[in-house]
């Protein structure tokens, strides 16, 4: 068990990324200028950005079997195929090994990006389609086709780990719509489309139901894989641009902002996807055992999360669920915060069924790492001396046993010492 703990701790240590090596693939190196504020933000936080053209023939994610980067930014909407050894398989392998990906496309979405999205559980609308919202477009930046659409914080998922705690001003988006598979539990719609927005080709009136329309549509979607690798997929590359970060928002509807909320939004999202927020680790797993049936069992563990400054602070969830499992869970209860250092614990009564059990924690919270802890413990049956004694209902049995014992003593005493009176013999 200690080994298991050590391994999982080291896994967490690997995964909890302090800013690190980041590969930025771009369609054109001019994105360095048009999106400079976003890149500067990352560099200021300590990320080491390596810019490469998407069709660079020397591209590779791996060298001598080791990944060269922790994070990957794909600002490559129009790329049909990456250069070098990068393809969709290489990207999914990168994610499977814990790498984080931030990807953005626009209405001209290339094949490779569509395939990557499909691998992650999203679907991007057909190439050339654009997101329209005739009811909420920005009057300053829009060129008259109502594709620079504005959205407010009600359309952004309410998970502070992902979007920060600051109140978001109205924000801008222009690009293509996505849909998420709602049966895929690992996928989250980060920003949903408004009821009046839809993704369609601009050239002719819409005559069949669009793939992306109304509130089921997504503008930005995310995936947190089972290994806690994170992927953020945005239908709009412009969302990250200097132009949108600095924009003054005024819509034909009632949204208005002196400065768009895009800066706060993309910074929070980038910090989430590159694992600065919502990162958990655990330690000090303590429990007793082996137990006997109907004993009181106790389990406790310490859980910490990364704060803004990259320090580990106590985790803030009010409770964490704990299961006591023998094939099926026999007990599922909540561990409460026991101390201010992030220790969670609970005491409960072991079931009256003996066997080999596991304490199991599978903590899931949207925007946070999954926390999986398991530890085995055996539960013994009662020993023969541990059963109940002196049962009132069994008193007749006790008394009959004692009276037998007493009877044996008294009867043998009388039988041995009795002497027939001599007179009787004479009479006969």
């Amino acid at each position: 068990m200690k080994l298991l703990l050590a391994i999982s701790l080291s896994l967490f240590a690997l995964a909890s990324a302090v800013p690190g090596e980041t590969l930025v693939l771009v369609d054109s190196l001019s994105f360095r200028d048009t999106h400079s504020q976003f890149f500067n933000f990352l560099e200021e936080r300590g990320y080491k950005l390596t810019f490469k053209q998407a069709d660079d023939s020397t591209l590779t994610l791996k060298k001598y079997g080791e990944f060269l980067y922790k994070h990957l930014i794909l600002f490559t909407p129009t790329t049909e195929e990456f250069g070098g050894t990068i393809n969709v398989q290489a990207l999914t392998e990168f994610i499977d090994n814990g790498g984080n990906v931030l990807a953005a496309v626009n209405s001209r979405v290339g094949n490779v990006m569509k395939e990557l999205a499909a691998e992650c559980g999203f679907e991007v609308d057909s190439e050339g389609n654009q997101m329209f919202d005739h009811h909420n477009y920005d009057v300053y930046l829009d060129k008259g086709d109502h594709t620079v659409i504005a959205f407010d914080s009600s359309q952004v998922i309410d998970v502070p780990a992902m979007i920060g705690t600051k109140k978001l001003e109205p924000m801008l988006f222009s690009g293509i719509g996505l849909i998420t598979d709602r049966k895929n539990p690992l996928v989250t719609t980060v920003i949903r489309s408004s009821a009046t927005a839809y993704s369609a080709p601009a050239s002719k009136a819409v005559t069949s139901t669009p793939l992306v329309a109304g509130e089921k549509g997504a503008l930005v979607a995310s995936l947190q894989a089972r290994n806690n690798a994170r992927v953020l997929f945005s239908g709009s590359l412009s969302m990250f641009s200097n132009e949108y970060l600095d924009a003054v928002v005024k819509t034909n509807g009632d949204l208005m902002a002196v400065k768009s909320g895009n800066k706060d939004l993309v910074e929070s999202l980038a910090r989430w996807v590159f694992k600065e927020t919502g990162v958990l680790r655990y330690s000090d797993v303590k429990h007793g055992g082996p137990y006997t049936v109907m004993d009181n069992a106790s389990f406790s563990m310490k859980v910490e999360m990364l704060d803004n400054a990259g320090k580990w602070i106590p985790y803030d969830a009010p409770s964490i669920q704990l299961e006591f499992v023998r094939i099926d869970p026999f007990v599922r209860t909540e561990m409460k915060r026991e101390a201010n250092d992030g220790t969670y614990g609970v005491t409960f009564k072991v079931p009256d069924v003996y066997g080999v059990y596991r304490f199991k924690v599978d903590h899931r919270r949207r925007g946070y790492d999954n926390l999986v802890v398991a530890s085995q413990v055996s539960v013994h049956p009662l020993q023969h001396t541990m059963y109940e004694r002196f049962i009132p209902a069994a008193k007749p049995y006790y008394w009959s046993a004692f009276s037998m014992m007493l009877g044996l003593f008294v009867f043998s005493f009388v039988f041995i010492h009795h002497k027939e009176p001599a007179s009787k013999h004479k009479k006969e």
Partner: protein
Amino acid sequence: MKRLFHFLLVLGLASIPSCTGQASQKSPLKEITVAELKLRAIDEVNAADWSSGFESVTYPNKASPLTITDDQRFQMSFAIRDSDRVDQQPHQVFVRIASATKELILVPFVDSLKFFKLDFDLKSKAGQLDNASGRYEVSLIVGDAKVKPILWTIANVHLKFNGEPIRIPDYYEQKPEIVHMFREPEKRPHVFVSNVFSLAVVLLFVVMLLLWTRVGISFGNVTASSLLFQASLAVILYIEYLFYLGNDMFTTLRYLTWAAPFALFFGRRMLAHLAKIEEQ
């Protein structure tokens, strides 16, 4: 002259009745309105006849509430016209049927008379609405790059589905608590009953004593060996009583190993004495 030509060109583009297409520059948005809107919920058998049974609604009023069951069709027809009463076909003409959590977006088709028509069987949409019966709002969304958008809540409808509502489990939801059901202790008789039976058992012993007094007993054969045998028997019985109280098997056996030889030795002496008496 060139500038005038340009102006005329822009004016010409803007006046094309079908106003789809990507506008290259901002121009004032045209006013449009929804006309001759009518709607109904109707059984399958009567659905082909579009001549009667509709409720007409004028923009921007609201129709009376409507109930649609899943063996009915929902039908709707309307036209979109500009201020010159010319039929328009904007880029976005959607009918949205939505509650707080469910949403269905439908695109009406355009018939030969430029009327928008919506005609669907509720059962066919049950999957998209997760069979969730309840109150929904029907609204019409009209938008285009060149017209003023319209968002009109036409009616409140009550949808009734026959199937069970579909619920997709939330991966992040707290799982329900499980409390282990411990085996119920067996029902036991009342203490009074066991007391009565205990008394009956003890009474049998007392009866034996009483009968002995009637028969008459005497202790003529008392010898040292018989008393010592009785004492060792009493010790053995007492060890067994201690076993009942809580001594374990091993302690009990150890005590018995000490007590048993005495009982054996004195028992033999006592029996030999008895045999001697018999002989006489």
